[in-house]
């Protein structure tokens, strides 16, 4: 993989969605990692700084907030975190934003829109 490309980590416990995201971002100039367990996600982020974390809230062994807590504690927060979730209740959205998410998007986000927005997020520091 080309280390100069932005690193997108897809934290998602469904392999079908992981595959779709891997194709979408992998074919458009990003390095993509996928993982569905909290420990695995944290390991990847520790060993390879994450530019964009696409975070599902319901993971195999915990939730997305556990991931954010641990990454913050380890001082390896992603450059940008976006919650990609099946839940859009106002209290969930507020909790994600308070936890530092740039945006909360309801799955499935149209592919082109997700790429365009990712481009904007990655363009800002």
């Amino acid at each position: 993989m080309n280390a100069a490309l932005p690193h997108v980590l897809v934290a998602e416990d469904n392999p079908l969605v992981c595959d779709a995201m891997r194709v979408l971002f992998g074919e458009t100039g990003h390095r993509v990692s996928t993982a569905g367990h909290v420990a695995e996600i944290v390991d990847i982020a520790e060993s390879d700084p994450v530019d964009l974390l696409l975070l599902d809230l319901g993971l195999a062994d915990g939730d997305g907030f556990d991931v954010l807590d641990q990454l913050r504690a380890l001082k390896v927060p992603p450059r940008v975190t976006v919650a990609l979730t099946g839940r859009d209740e106002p209290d969930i959205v507020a909790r994600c934003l308070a936890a530092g998410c740039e945006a909360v998007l309801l799955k499935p986000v149209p592919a082109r829109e997700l790429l365009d927005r990712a481009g904007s997020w990655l363009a800002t520091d």
Partner: protein
Amino acid sequence: MISVDQETPTSSLAQAPVSTLPLETQLKQALEHIAELEARDALKTQFLANISHDLRTPLTAVITHAEILRDGILGPLSDRQLDSISGIINGGRQLLAQVGEILKYARGAANQLTITWTEFQLGDVIAQQGTLNESLASKKGVTLETDVPADLEPVSADREKVGHIIGNLLGNAIDFTSNGGRVWVRVTRGQGPDGPECVIEVGDTGIGIDPAHHELVFREFAQVDSSASRQHHGTGLGLTIARKLVELHGGRIWLESALGAGSRFYFTIPHPAR
């Protein structure tokens, strides 16, 4: 011709033979029966919420893969291939909307829907829903009109949920109106039992609904024509959800319609004078 083939609900309590047990025992049994039915209903609601949430995930994969192909990310496609991929995406999005409707119903049934109050211009939400439904109306050859007083004060309500109600009523109106017909959304100021209100009317010149079925259309899972050969498909939850959302706002919803005479659905949002 539409017909009602939905079975009339019956109560097992009503059919029970006359009991010789003491009244106190009968009451206890009835209360236990009610508690059991409520528990089963809660299970059904939870099942609907879980299954609709779980269905979203594989649908996300299907739609995203199809959009990757459509958008040429894996290379250019021929026009015929694009048409076919667009069919997959449209079908997937339609299924997704129906799954979303089931989830919304389940949340409503479990009293998990909350209102996020904000102030907004009703005309903006109506214009937005009009735009969303424009292509559907134009495909069917149906004219879409809106009429909102230019000086209407902002309303205090949940913008997303009001949009959902109007979108549902508009979608139905277009669906049940044939080529050359008209669909409209009109807002007027009214006086309700509890004070001033906005009355939102969504009308059409479509097939209409027999007055005998007016209450049925708001009942969960009910469709006036529920036969396998019915022409209009859906979950049968749209109007149930719309009524729930209107009631959460403290409003009312009703319809005026007759077979062959079009339909006019009305709902209100309390609109205190400033």
